[in-house]
């Protein structure tokens, strides 16, 4: 058990340091500014845990110290079983205590009535947790993990148990706690008192649930409108995606490469940009609108600003995603099935309707659900096109920042939105799991896919070609729009927008970033660069645990992690500001909250990529490493990670790009100090400064294309070299490196 002692020694050391050498509570000026050092440790706000107990009268922290010391006792016991029990017990008690004291005691003393009556009023409250408190909480979590490991859980692998525990802890803090806070927030008033009136009146609000439009009234409630829009977007993007997939795989269409290129677009396009481009085309002073007015005398109208406009924008945005999903599905239908059908006297038409299409059904359902969830979660397009008559995600936003701030209404709307997306997510998991008929087997399936029947081939071409044209026009607008002076009024070309956004001056021999966009641009880059590796690390670690480890509750673990994918950004945003702007955890206005948000929102994609890649690595490689005296941390570092390089890069690029393009959660979390590009652009749009907005957007797209291409270049080369090295080996021993699709 010498290893067991080593890691316990480390924990004890860190724990003692956390009690003695760092501030227990949150440092207002930021911990990493290290400005606090000069006033440490006797300043009341900055005192470490030990002094908080001894001098400041925060005696309840004694319990944390006692539980920590209790756990330390395990270090000096020799019986593995008893050690494990003591560690787990003190860890569980410790983490529960830390959570309870954090929630129950805030600035003003007790925040709950029950302990107040039990223990009497407190003379002193406490601010949010800081370095000391957070470190001790983590140490309690690790106590549990190491205790379980000593008792033989996960074959006694402390690294794996530790990773699982910490991941569960993080997901609890950054997903379940905020969502829970939001629920509680919906029945609280501003001052925190219990007041369900807001909840009740909001839930019954006719503007949410009204079905007027069905009985001839003017408009339905926002919940129904959102649902209707999501269904229409799901259908539209699935149908279009299927057409694209059929054209790309079953016809002789000459521009297939170009089609595949389409799949990259949604990744690099900030979500509101499509809406913006549509405005420039079809808005009241859009090019097309004006042309129709002058040529045919059609009155310009505001038809674009509403569900129709949002729908078009969303179908444009999400068709590539559904295309990406459906390409796999269409290709996955085994050619031999289709050939079998044809030898059974079925013509192409019958083969398509009776064999190919039914086999694709689960894939189609999946694509529909993805479109549905994306539409529900979309915030950018409705914000640009919906105005104030938007959908749930925008209504939530306006309930927080609008003229009448109503947190309870925001929470109710968020819960409705969340229940819609979670239902779709459950449907996807429960109903579609195990129903995948796409027959991708390891056996080389020879044979050719059946061609499409004439009529269908004509139809899909008829749909795909114009839509591709439309897409090109829309993206053309994005590129071009930044160079036009004022849309509709003055169509002369200019560099003015770019100059205002990105000008650089030299004053007194020093470089001055004088453009208005630079601030948010650099913040965005910084935060994206910090969160990308964290996201990739958390995602791949999770993938490793899901693929390579077996433990009770693994499915629940996986489910909880993947679920965060189905939580709309708006909901995350609103729940983060509700949870993290008061003790025990206070992060609003910091860069940290943005990083946390990106890590936990984008992680599921890293997990998926990691799972796909890791499933292709023979498990005996890790086992060989374990029997060669390497623990699992070393195994991960020396064997698995080097072999997973493509997946790592994909995860890095994806999370980097997502951090740049996302808006829905970000718009709630930005602050004056940390403003992000997307929210800055949305601000420009709201002020009607379309020119700069578009210029800035195309700049972002350009930066992302550069980054992706750069990565592709590096990784592509590396993969080739490795493949050359591996070739010449007999096929069964060859390790295949999958190309990770970055979606």
């Amino acid at each position, binding site marked *: 058990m010498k*290893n067991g002692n080593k890691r316990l020694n480390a924990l004890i050391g860190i724990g003692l340091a956390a009690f003695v050498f760092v501030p227990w509570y949150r440092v207002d000026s930021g911990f990493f500014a290290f400005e606090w050092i000069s006033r440490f440790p006797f300043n009341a706000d900055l005192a470490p845990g030990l002094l908080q107990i001894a001098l400041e009268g925060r005696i309840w922290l004694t319990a944390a110290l006692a539980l920590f010391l209790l756990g330390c006792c395990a270090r000096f016991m020799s019986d*593995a079983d008893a050690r494990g029990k003591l560690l787990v017990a003190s860890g569980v008690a410790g983490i529960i205590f830390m959570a309870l004291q954090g929630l129950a005691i805030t600035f003003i003393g007790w925040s709950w009535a029950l302990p107040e009556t039990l223990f009497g009023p407190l003379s002193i409250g406490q601010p949010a947790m800081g370095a000391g408190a957070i470190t001790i909480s983590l140490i309690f979590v690790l106590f549990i993990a190491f205790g379980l490991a000593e*008792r*033989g859980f996960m*074959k*006694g*692998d402390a690294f794996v148990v530790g990773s699982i525990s910490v991941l569960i802890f993080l997901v609890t803090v950054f997903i379940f706690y905020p969502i829970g806070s939001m629920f509680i927030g919906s029945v609280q008033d501003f001052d925190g008192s219990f007041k369900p009136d807001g909840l009740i009146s909001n839930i019954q609000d006719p503007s949410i649930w009204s079905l007027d439009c069905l009985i001839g009234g003017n408009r339905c409630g926002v919940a129904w409108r959102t649902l209707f829009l999501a269904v229409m977007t799901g259908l539209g993007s699935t149908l279009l995606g299927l057409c694209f997939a059929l054209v790309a795989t079953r016809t002789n269409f000459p521009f297939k490469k170009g089609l595949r290129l389409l799949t990259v677009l949604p990744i690099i396009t900030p979500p509101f940009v499509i809406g913006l481009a549509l405005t420039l085309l079809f808005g009241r002073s859009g090019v097309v609108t004006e042309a129709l007015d002058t040529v045919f005398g059609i009155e310009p109208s505001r038809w674009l600003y509403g569900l129709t406009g949002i729908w078009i924008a969303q179908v444009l945005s999400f068709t590539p995603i559904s295309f990406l999903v459906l390409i796999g599905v269409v290709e996955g239908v085994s050619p031999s099935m289709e050939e079998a059908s044809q030898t059974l006297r079925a013509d192409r038409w019958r083969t398509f309707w009776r064999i190919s299409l039914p086999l694709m059904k689960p894939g189609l359902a999946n694509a529909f659900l993805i479109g549905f969830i994306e539409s529900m979660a979309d915030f950018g397009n409705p914000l640009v096109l919906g105005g104030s008559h938007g959908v749930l995600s925008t209504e939530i936003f306006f309930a927080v920042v609008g003229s009448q701030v109503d947190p309870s209404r925001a929470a109710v709307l968020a819960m409705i939105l969340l229940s819609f997306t979670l239902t779709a997510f459950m449907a996807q998991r429960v109903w579609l799991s195990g129903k995948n008929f796409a027959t991708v087997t390891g056996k080389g399936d020879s044979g050719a896919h059946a061609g499409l029947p004439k009529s269908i081939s004509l139809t899909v071409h008829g749909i795909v070609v114009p839509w591709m044209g439309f897409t090109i026009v829309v993206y053309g607008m994005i590129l071009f729009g930044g160079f036009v002076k004022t849309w509709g009024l003055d169509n002369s070309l200019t560099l003015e927008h770019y100059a205002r956004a990105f000008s650089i001056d030299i004053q007194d021999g020093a470089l001055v970033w004088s453009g208005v966009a630079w601030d948010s641009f650099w913040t965005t880059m910084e935060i994206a660069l910090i969160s990308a590796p964290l996201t990739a690390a958390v995602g791949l670690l999770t993938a490793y645990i899901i693929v390579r480890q077996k433990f009770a509750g693994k499915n629940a673990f996986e489910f909880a992690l993947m679920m965060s994918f189905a939580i709309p950004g708006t909901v995350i945003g609103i729940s983060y500001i509700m949870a993290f702007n008061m003790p025990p955890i206070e992060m609003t206005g910091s860069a940290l909250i943005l990083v946390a948000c990106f890590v936990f929102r984008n992680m599921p994609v890293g997990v998926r990529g990691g799972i796909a890649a890791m499933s292709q690595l*023979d498990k*005996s*490689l890790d*086992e*060989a*490493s*374990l*029997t*060669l*005296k*390497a*623990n*699992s941390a*070393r195994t991960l570092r*020396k*064997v698995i990670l*080097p*072999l997973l390089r493509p997946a790592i890069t994909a995860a890095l690029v994806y999370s980097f790009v997502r951090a740049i393009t996302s808006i829905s959660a970000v718009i709630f979390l930005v602050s004056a100090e940390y403003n992000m590009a997307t929210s800055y652009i949305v601000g420009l749009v709201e002020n009607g400064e379309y020119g700069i907005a578009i210029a800035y957007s195309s700049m972002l797209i350009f930066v992302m294309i550069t980054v992706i291409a750069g990565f592709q270049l590096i990784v592509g080369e590396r993969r080739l070299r*490795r493949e050359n*090295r*591996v*070739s*010449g*080996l*007999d096929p*069964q*021993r*060859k*390790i295949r490196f999958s190309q990770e699709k970055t979606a």
Partner: protein
Amino acid sequence: MTDLKPGSVVFENIRKDFGAFTAIPDLSLTIEPGTLVTLLGPSGCGKTTTLRMLAGLEHPSSGRILIGGRDVTMTPAHERDVSMVFQSYALFPHMNALENVAYGLESSGYNKREVRERAEEGLAQVGLGGMGHRLPAELSGGQQQRVAVARALVLNPQVLLLDEPLSNLDARLRRKVRTEIRELQQRLGFTAVYVTHDQDEALAVSDRIVVMKEGKIAQEGAPRVLYEEPVSEFIADFMGEANVIPCEVLSREGDVALIDVGGLQHRLPARQSSAGKAKLAVRPGSVVLNPDAGGGLDGEILTSAYLGDHVEYEIETPVGTFFVIDHSVDRSLPAHTRVSLGFRNKGLALIES
């Protein structure tokens, strides 16, 4: 590889469940230090599971495992003093042969120079001295296999585990490599647990063989014992081919029983049998054919196949069909010949019925 310290292995009432499925119900087994013991049995009988529990890659549901006298039941794989050669070799494809061999030494905390020396020595030991810089992909199947063995051996484990180490080699190479492994084991004297489903391989390399069936030990003993004295039809059949036919034990005097097989009488070791109906396992080579019918068990040749150094017959008799191997190739008998069958003294065993 000087400081070798072969260890014993003890399984005490080991049970292993995978969910609701019990792969190993109750296994107890002792392996003496310095011996090569083979786990033999049909696919799915639990050999790999047993080996993996020894390596620490699976943990038993109950029971204890001791290596070199120390209880390792709860010890994680990387802290156990065993090494394993995997069926797929599991060589790390991104490291060359030397790096592969050095990997375990680095993990164990040797200093750089020692790692290099020992790794090179290890490669030399398996005859791959100059090949350290090659990637696994650039080695032949047999060479990869030897790198895998070297990688496991340089750690001087108390026990070396080999899971079907030859199954990825072609038939000719298999014979050569198995001799090499046995020779290496005897020269260095380590304890080895060897898993295979091939009885020839087991007979060739083992000090002892443990035959498993459905997670239980069906019989355990020296190769010769298992071949010549199978206790059950399963063992008789599994350890090479056998004719299992009904017989009657007429009488028993001490250790010798007199049996009757369709009129032919024969004496052989009595084992657990008692007078009455019994079953007899007869090796195909232990049947004597006598064309000039009479005196033995009467039969008629159904098929006859000439295979170069021997002739194979299927012969129908009143007690059942015999499969017979006859090495007197000059006298190949055609089908439909009537013959009389007799038994040799070796290669017959009464088995449990």
